[in-house]
């Protein structure tokens, strides 16, 4: 039987990755009632995923993770795990559905807040090519997530491809777990990347990070200006075909980890009316969005990686609890990082050849199995949804919509509630919100 549970918080954070962890532990420091709501079983987002890190570790990255987990544990924070936020009932109230773990009663949750901090993270961009729907063709970050959640890859042959700094991190991680990383294929040209690497001199930690990857990846070719054109196999992946625009090579492998950099998760910010600019949530120097009392931190404001996410989280944690002055040094730090984000975007800009990846029969919308020949004649996202069912399945266009933005210039940012598929029972218990209103009024 579905039920409605109501909870009120001074500060509610959506998203339990590094940005959300920094925001919540900072906000909770002064006795405010703070909660994190997240759809995963544990805190840490895709990068930390609830693994245990030691503060005694030699790796600076592990120390950082350990320190933030400790801060969250020591603060008085309610962690609502396994809850998916799907709608906003009215200003100051989000609706969520439980799906996993100890909260698995499939009821609706009403989460009331004074201040809201959106830390919804990013997803990989997927581009359709022939064979991308085969089993064992996954995102690059996706394969890493699977290994972090227990998938053994020792001895497996893995090709890593697509775009972005994530490819190196993923390849290094796979190598460390005993996989045979056959090669890393970056679509950006060497020229594009060299300009980026030069800019990195401003940020020594990142250079160190880059060199660590290099050492770990010794012997694995890192090919630039190279991209996937097809994957073959009977139901399951057997080989991938890579191209540099002149010649193609077919390489046998067990897993193909392929993602084209990241796109921000802006569905909830957009639903709440936050202003977007070039696909990202627009924020002021205190991380405030265009909507009063709503802040946004981390990747939705710009793909800047871990350090920027943490700093933005701290700024919003302070600002949302009235400690604006304390945020000033952090704001200066953040400003320095901004140029990194911009350079990153230029360095890994997608090459136009990738628009020709799908052939007529390639499935673009995996939920509804709609092919490229069915969708390519439509210039708008609205039209393609109406005529082909592309984007109408359970992922609600999160995969095909982001691909279509690049392939066909769709503007797939229009959102409608519920922003995720919700059980009928959950939708059927909506009236509780009215009762609260009448009691208060």
């Amino acid at each position, binding site marked *: 039987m579905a039920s409605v549970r109501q909870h009120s918080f001074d500060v509610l954070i959506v998203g339990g990755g590094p940005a959300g962890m920094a925001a919540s532990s900072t906000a909770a420091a002064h006795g405010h009632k703070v909660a994190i709501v997240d*759809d*995963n*079983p544990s805190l840490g987002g*895709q990068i930390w995923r609830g693994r245990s890190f030691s503060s005694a570790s030699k790796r600076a990255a592990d120390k950082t993770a350990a320190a933030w987990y400790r801060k969250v544990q020591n603060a008085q924070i309610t962690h609502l795990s*396994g809850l*998916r936020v799907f709608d906003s009932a009215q200003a100051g109230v989000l609706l969520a559905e439980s*799906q*996993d*773990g100890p909260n698995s009663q*499939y009821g609706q949750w009403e989460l009331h807040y004074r201040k809201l901090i959106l830390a919804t993270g990013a*997803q*990989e961009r*997927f581009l359709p090519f022939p064979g991308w*729907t085969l*089993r*064992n*063709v*996954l*995102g690059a*970050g*996706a*394969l890493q*997530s*699977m290994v972090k*959640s*227990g*998938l*053994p890859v020792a001895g497996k042959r893995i090709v890593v491809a697509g775009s972005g700094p994530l490819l190196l991190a993923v390849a290094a991680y796979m190598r460390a777990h005993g996989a045979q990383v056959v090669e890393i294929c970056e679509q950006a040209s060497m020229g594009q990347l060299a300009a980026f690497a030069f800019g990195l001199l401003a940020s020594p930690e990142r250079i160190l990070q880059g060199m660590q990857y290099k050492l770990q990846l010794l012997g694995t070719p890192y090919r630039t200006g190279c991209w996937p054109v097809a994957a073959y196999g009977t*139901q*399951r992946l057997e080989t991938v075909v890579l191209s540099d625009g002149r010649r193609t090579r077919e390489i046998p492998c067990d897993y193909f980890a392929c993602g084209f950099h990241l796109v921000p*998760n802006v569905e909830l910010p957009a639903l709440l009316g936050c202003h977007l600019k070039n696909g990202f949530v627009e924020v002021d120097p205190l991380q405030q969005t265009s909507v009063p009392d709503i802040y946004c931190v981390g990747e939705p404001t710009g793909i800047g990686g871990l350090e920027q996410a943490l700093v933005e989280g701290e700024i919003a944690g302070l600002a949302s609890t009235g400690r604006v002055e304390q945020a000033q040094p952090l704001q200066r730090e953040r400003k320095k990082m901004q140029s990194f984000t911009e350079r990153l975007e230029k360095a890994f800009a997608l090459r136009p050849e990738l628009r020709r990846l799908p052939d007529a029969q390639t*499935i673009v919308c*995996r*939920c*509804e*199995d709609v092919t490229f020949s069915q969708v390519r004649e439509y210039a708008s996202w609205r039209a393609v949804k109406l005529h082909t069912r592309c984007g109408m*399945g*359970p*992922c609600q266009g*999160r*995969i095909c919509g982001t691909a279509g933005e690049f392939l066909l210039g769709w503007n797939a940012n229009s959102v409608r509630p519920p922003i995720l*598929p919700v*059980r009928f029972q959950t939708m059927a218990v909506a009236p509780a919100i009215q009762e609260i209103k009448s009691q208060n009024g």
Partner: protein
Amino acid sequence: MHEPQPETVQIHINGKSVRVATGSTVAVALTLTEQACRISVRHEERGPLCAMGICMECRVTIDGVPSRLACQTLCQPNMDVRTHG
């Protein structure tokens, strides 16, 4: 203080028992045993794509509840997983 954790956990996938490392997601159990999560509209076998709860390709029936995401669900002792639902 902490109870010693068993290192593996047994679940049932389409009636067949599978043992995986404690802390593994259902998506890991399915991939490890080379099984598809669902059959698509055009009858293709599908497995996880994003592994973070966005693509919905890994939806399976768990303990009788349909459309649960294998990538966000940890294997619990004797969990009953049904694919192709």
